[in-house]
């Protein structure tokens, strides 16, 4: 009943009926993201102004109907899933503002702007927007802000939160506030900007963001080093970073991913090698020419079996191809890919590798490891078939073990994918009872009726990890 009244009121707020979706096929189309689970919303609304969002939020408050902000649904943790029914707020079509201010070195953007488009627009004026999640051609900045996304460049440049200096937010009660501003320095009161970033849409709806830009590096160089022993590759990584060089990207692939890629498309990778690392340096051409030689020498000293330095951009993209092909290569045998992002301190990378190997054997799962080795954000990927229930139970147990291992080694549940529905049951393990309670108190004071993205971050009593859609 409340919903019908609400629908009438929604139609008054959103004059364009095309932006209010009620048909079954539409509801099914917004029932999922890139993680697991399917939940039908009652309604999908596509707002395009802060006034529309504020009015919708006020109505939701009056009728106590849950609201779930959503970008383009690339979340790997269940962020936008409408787990308790209600309204999905599709913000992906609101991409009207993308202003680059060269003088202040900031970008001011609407929530639906694609992350890669911000970087492209910045580059035209001689800047970059560094956060580069691998989905940046698809993901919206609103989603990146909600999840505090990272990416390969995180090692040198940090993650989304390091670039956000101001926000416009609609509160769960439908008020419009502004946090931070256009200055790098700003210590006026609590840092609500940083609180909002990574809050997974549970505290407010971001309707505009002011993002810092960096000067565009003049050049890049790429190097690939191949190791017979995975521990040697870990040592090489530590030595490179210890020698005062900060690569813009430092990615690694384990033996299973090398084999998968070679079987998928022969690139001439050595299938017996235990690990390979790919390094990209950026900066002044003279400086990185010097640094690439140093990196080469460090890798050789760490017993690299082979070191290849790309001589031009074409050779560089040839080397990166190996990394790009990992995803299509590993899903050839079985379709379900569980991409984990548990992260450990850099010094614990070799130990984490050992733990992953044990988990792989204990639960007899197909596990490959590739990812952002430079910042300890390894991506152990489990390949399975979600139709095989017995296998999925083993996978669920293995995933739990991975979380435990990461936390025991002083790391974290999630480096960049977010908690969402998927990792909620493990929050207390990392934060402790009081730590988690402090977070719940924040949520309670911001959203007393618990209508903004309910069911995320905080587990329901008895909630367990589930990696199936049913």
């Amino acid at each position, binding site marked *: 009943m409340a919903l019908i009244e609400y629908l009438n009121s929604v139609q008054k707020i959103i004059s364009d009926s*095309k932006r209010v*979706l009620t*048909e*079954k*096929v*539409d509801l*099914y*189309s*917004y029932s*999922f*993201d*890139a993680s697991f689970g399917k939940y039908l919303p009652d309604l*999908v609304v*596509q707002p395009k102004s802060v006034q529309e969002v504020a009015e919708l939020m006020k109505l939701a408050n009056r009728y106590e109907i849950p609201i779930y902000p959503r970008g*383009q*649904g*690339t979340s790997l943790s269940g962020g936008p899933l409408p787990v308790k029914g209600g309204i999905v707020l*599709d913000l992906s*079509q609101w991409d009207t503002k993308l202003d680059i201010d060269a003088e202040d070195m900031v970008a001011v953007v609407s929530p639906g702007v*694609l992350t890669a488009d911000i970087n492209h627009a910045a580059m035209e004026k001689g800047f970059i927007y560094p956060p580069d999640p691998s*989905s940046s*051609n*698809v993901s919206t900045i609103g989603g990146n802000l909600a999840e505090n996304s990272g990416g390969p460049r995180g090692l040198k440049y940090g993650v989304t939160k390091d670039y956000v200096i101001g926000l416009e937010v609609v509160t769960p009660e439908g008020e419009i506030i502004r946090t931070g501003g256009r200055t790098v320095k700003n210590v006026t009161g609590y840092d609500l900007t940083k609180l909002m970033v990574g809050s997974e849409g549970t505290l407010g709806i971001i309707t505009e963001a002011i993002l810092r830009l960096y000067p565009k590096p003049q050049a890049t160089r790429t190097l690939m080093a191949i190791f017979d022993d995975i521990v040697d590759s870990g040592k090489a990584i530590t030595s490179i970073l210890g020698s005062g060089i900060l690569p813009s990207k430092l990615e690694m692939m384990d033996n299973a991913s090398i084999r998968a890629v070679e079987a998928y498309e022969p690139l001439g990778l050595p299938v017996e090698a235990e690990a390979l690392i790919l390094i990209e340096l950026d900066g002044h051409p003279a400086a990185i020419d010097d640094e690439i030689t140093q990196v080469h020498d460090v890798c050789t000293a760490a017993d690299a079996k082979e070191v290849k330095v790309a001589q031009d951009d074409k050779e560089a993209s040839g080397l990166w191809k190996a990394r790009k092909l990992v*995803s*299509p290569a590993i*899903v*050839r045998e079985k*379709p*379900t*890919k569980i991409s984990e992002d548990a992260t450990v301190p850099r010094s614990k990378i070799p130990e984490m590798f050992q733990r992953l190997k044990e988990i792989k054997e204990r639960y007899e799962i197909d596990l490959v490891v590739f990812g952002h080795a430079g910042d300890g954000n390894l991506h152990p990927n489990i390949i399975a078939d*979600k*139709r095989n229930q017995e296998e999925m139970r083993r996978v669920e147990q293995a995933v739990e073990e991975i979380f435990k291992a990461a936390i025991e080694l002083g790391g974290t549940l999630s480096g960049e994918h977010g908690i969402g529905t998927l990792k909620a049951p493990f929050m207390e393990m990392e934060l402790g009872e009081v730590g988690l309670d402090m977070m719940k108190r924040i949520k309670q004071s911001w959203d007393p009726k618990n209508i903004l993205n309910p069911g995320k971050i905080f587990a329901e009593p008895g909630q367990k990890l589930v990696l199936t859609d049913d």
Partner: protein
Amino acid sequence: MTKAELAYEETVDCVQCGYCLPACPTYLTMEKETHSPRGRINLVKMAAEGKITYSELEGPINLCLGCRACEVVCPTNVQYGTILESAKEVLRENQKRTSTFQAFIFENVLPNQTYMLAARASLSVYQQFGMQKIARATKALQWLPENVRSFESILPKTDKRTRRKKYSPEQEPIFKVGFFTGCVMDVMFSEINKKSIKLLQAAGCEVTVIKEQTCCGALQNHAGESNITKELARKNIAAFEKYDFDYIVNSIGGCGAMLVEYDRLFTDEEDWKKRAHEFVRKTVDISVILTQLKLPFQKEISKVVTYQPSCHLSNVQKRVEEPVNLLTSIPGIQYIPLPHKELCCGSAGIYNIVNYDASMQILDKKMGHVNQLTLRPEIMVATNPGCHLQLKLGVVREGLGEQMKVVHLVELLAEACALESDAKI
């Protein structure tokens, strides 16, 4: 005859990452997940699981262009084409034949040379006797629905269709080529077929046009008529395998895509699968052969040229470089790449007639990209008759009729080689 089934297993391969969204023209114009590849795959899955009905599935499936740009960007190789075709087939089977006219065209007119000849005859009579002018001047065609009317004004001048015979080069032939004419192409754009043959001949090929060939079956297949498609495929395979051709060549992006997927039609018929495989192995777009050979360019074409690739040539036949390499090899040409050229123009077989409004939205987006170019192209190149007509319409809609010409790649090459089609062909 087995009952059509949704390709459920293939839908499970989709990890729902969403990388296909920015590549999908209908997601960009219709602005909702329901009309995206990921959304459609999910809906096919939901229909297979009985969560939505076939009639609910119909809208999103019918509004898919079938351009298959999503397959190219998919990081996990989901077979979208197979999923789409299965859905069309199931929908076709479950729907009462609402459009008997369409069924009649698919089953009888396109594959039938007599009907097509009659169509050509009426088209040329209409044009030659000035009826087109009269009709246009008096707006006699106003009573036609807008979708048909729009195309009336841009129909090409038809000519005598290709005669069945062998065309030999001056020297010992480098390749023996069987030329695939295509049914619509042979009527609407017979000039292009003639020029294709001349080019192949000039580049050193012996070209044979065999009578036994028939329609490729693409339009039928896109409408879910898999049995008719298979029948046509069998006819073509049987026709061409009787000859000793090195290659089976066509100049039609869309037909070529159907031809190179003939083997996928016969998953459970070993013998036909094998024969289809051999047919597929020999089938190539004309741009592939011509890039391997030397073209006798005679004159410079000092024009600014852009190119809108045929989706089926790029995404299904996977020929992206060849047409561009040929284009840029023409002396005097200034080639400027069209931004977002990987997005479909909205032609998509008969999509622009049955889904006219949706198609025009996509076309307007395409023309918006043309207008973004800092230098205005004098020529826009196409590699498929459907795109050719659609782009012509786009040029007219933008009021650029006088400034921008739409031509097939073959026409431009023939001009640069000073090959006029003459009565001999």
